């Protein structure tokens, strides 16, 4: 059942490409803003690059998550999902995984422009950079999907999502920046393994909370 729902999410996105494309374009404009505000001075940017990268991802993911829930509201499609005889926790899991996939796809495209526009070198250990990035994406999406699931039917939901999401996700921002800094500076794994633990515990706690809470919060 999880795979059917995941396939549906991916298929809708494949049809319209609206989530990944809108995230990508928004991300590019944020890079532009970073370039202008930092004077693209290599001294400033290279220290701050991991932070910039994750700030961009955070803003972009709010946009993407909002999209994935607004097409459910269109034509009342969501009532088909929740009236179906399935465990609603699975809806959370499918949205979580599909959201992570969209975010990762968007990042894979934007990594090169990000580093090149800011006149930085690409990460030397590319595989490690990407794999830690995917782990962080899982954590970001586990929180983002749960928060937007909670307020999806609320008035002003597009305002409430970032207001609740940003403070809740602050441990992930810290950890992601530390991990990426470590990977970019090629420091020893022991120096940032603690932050991987933080990321993993966020994933476990929020995935469990999302899976159990979705039954209550998705009702109309």
């Amino acid at each position: 059942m999880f795979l059917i729902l995941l396939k549906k999410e991916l298929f809708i996105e494949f049809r319209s490409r609206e989530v990944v494309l809108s995230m990508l374009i928004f991300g590019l404009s944020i890079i532009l803003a970073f370039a202008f505000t930092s004077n693209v001075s290599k001294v400033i940017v290279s220290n701050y690059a991991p932070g910039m990268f994750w700030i961009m991802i955070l803003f972009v993911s709010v946009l993407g998550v909002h999209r994935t829930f607004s097409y459910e509201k269109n034509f009342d499609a969501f009532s088909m999902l929740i009236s179906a005889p399935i465990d609603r926790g699975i809806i959370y899991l499918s949205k979580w995984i599909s959201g992570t996939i969209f975010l990762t796809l968007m990042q894979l495209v934007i990594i090169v422009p990000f580093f090149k526009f800011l006149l930085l070198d690409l990460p030397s250990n590319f595989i490690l950079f990407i794999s830690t990035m995917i782990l962080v994406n899982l954590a970001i999406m586990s929180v983002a999907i749960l928060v937007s699931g909670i307020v999806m039917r609320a008035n002003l939901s597009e305002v409430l999502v970032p207001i609740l999401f940003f403070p809740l996700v602050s441990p992930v921002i810290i950890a992601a920046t530390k991990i990426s800094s470590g990977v970019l500076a090629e420091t020893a794994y022991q120096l940032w393994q603690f932050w991987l633990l933080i990321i993993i515990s966020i994933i476990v706690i929020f995935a469990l909370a999302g899976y159990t809470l979705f039954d209550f919060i998705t009702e109309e």
Partner: protein
Amino acid sequence: MVTFFKNKNNMFFLIFVGILLLFNIYNISFNTPMVPDQHWAQKIFYVHVPSAWVGFLSYFVVMIAGLMFFVKRNDYWDNVGLAAAEIGTIFISLVLITGPIWATPIWGKPWIWEPRLTTTLILFLIYIGYFMVRSFGGHIERVKRYAASIGIIAFLDVPIIFLSVQFWAPEIQSHPQVEMAKQPAGILIPFLISLCIFTLVYILMLRYRIYVIQIKDKLIKNV
């Protein structure tokens, strides 16, 4: 309808807590030793830390009320959650106000990214969102479920926020009174007394607020 303080036990409790509060102010002002390099500024410690304790306790009550609301689906637990969220936010605000007042003479600047203070600030921001959902979320029955789930995930997030903030900038570890156990008895005992009194004040406030919210609910329902 009998008002809350017409009840003899509640009235007695109010007077009792009031006397204790007066005693607490006296005790803090005159019976505690002066810390040499902090002087009067250190006294705020007896308010700052108990406020933080009550604030976090109250947010814990919000989580429990949220869980109970989902299990029992009973409006009573929503009222408890709302009351605890309101009072918790009052005390957390008190922490965020007394923190800089204490910090300015000691550290020379109003804000330092000290882990406990930072965690408190993040939690405060989450609860601003909580109250925004409460007021703009839509019809009341729906908002109750949103509020309960935010209360649950906010508290689940606390240990992780604290851990990550603590190791985020390890050079900032200069909380003036971190090691409670290492405090001399002259400070520790009045501090513990203050902690107990604050907890009693909290219990009184919470009970009163739940009572008021219940009356408000009844009035709206009967209109």
